[in-house]
């Protein structure tokens, strides 16, 4: 299984587009900036919702109102981040799949954080109906916030491990 994954990564990083990206002095930074721009939208809107779940600005908007208002830009940010991230990954795919921090980031932290985020978005309407934010909502908001922070820690650790 791992050998198949390695073969796929090897093929990916030798495709003409990826080879051009690797060899170009100018193409790589814009791809990195694309990934970071997408992450800004994704993380910024996620954390805004998480902080609302924790009670920040509860007099202004309900959890559902904020979740609905951010929904489109939230997932647009995710799509941009994935596009940029995939291109960054493809340049050194075989190196990334062997990297422990990358494996933890993509194999464990990202799926768990993503799943919890989807649950939080889907539960926003139910949690908004209560007079006080339910404890479960606050725990879910804090957990998601910490999970995204963990994803960032794993990402920054990639070059060091």
């Amino acid at each position, binding site marked *: 299984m791992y050998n198949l994954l390695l073969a796929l990564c090897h093929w990916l990083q030798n495709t003409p587009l990826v080879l051009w990206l690797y060899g170009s002095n100018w193409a790589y930074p814009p791809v990195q900036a694309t990934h970071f721009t997408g992450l*800004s939208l994704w993380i910024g809107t996620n954390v805004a919702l998480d902080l609302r779940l924790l009670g*920040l600005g509860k007099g202004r908007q309900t959890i559902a109102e904020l979740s*609905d*208002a951010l929904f489109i830009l939230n997932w647009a940010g995710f799509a941009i981040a994935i596009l940029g991230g995939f291109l960054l990954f493809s340049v050194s795919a075989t190196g990334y799949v062997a990297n422990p921090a990358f494996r933890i980031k993509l194999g464990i932290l990202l799926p768990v954080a993503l799943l919890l985020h989807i649950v939080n978005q889907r539960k926003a309407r139910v949690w908004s109906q209560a007079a006080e934010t339910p404890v479960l909502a606050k725990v879910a908001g804090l957990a998601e916030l910490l999970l995204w922070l963990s994803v960032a*820690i794993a990402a920054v650790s990639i070059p060091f491990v």
Partner: protein
Amino acid sequence: MLFAAFNWLEHNSWIVAIDSTAVESAVLLIVHYFGFFLLVGSIAVVNLRLLGVGVPGETAGRLGKQIFSTMWTGLVLSLLSGFILFAGSATQYYNNQVFYLKVLIVLLAIVCTVIIQWNVSSWDRLPAVPVWAKWLAFVSIALWIGAILIGVEIPGLTGVG
């Protein structure tokens, strides 16, 4: 004069202590990235709403009231960590024109952001968002994306960072 100040900063005992351990440098990087994502993601949501992107029923002013606190938290985190990261190699940035350009872009982006925050509630009360406000929102987004792009270009173009 400026070089002497940079040199003093780089050899300040606090900066040397922080810069000498890999863990503290990694923590600074995580705070810098995460803070910047919060900052840019939050302001982008308000700017894009001013430009007509997002949920039609939600005004930019209402969104801003909810997420400006997230934005300022991000700004403080990214500026503080960014300053310490800069201080650790201050003399290497002395002749780095790309770095000065980044600082200029970030300062202009902050000015745009402050003007938007001051005025966004009053724009809510108008029948339509003024054209100059839309231009300001567009310039603000362009400057923040420019800050990301130039931030990732600095190591490639100058070998510092």
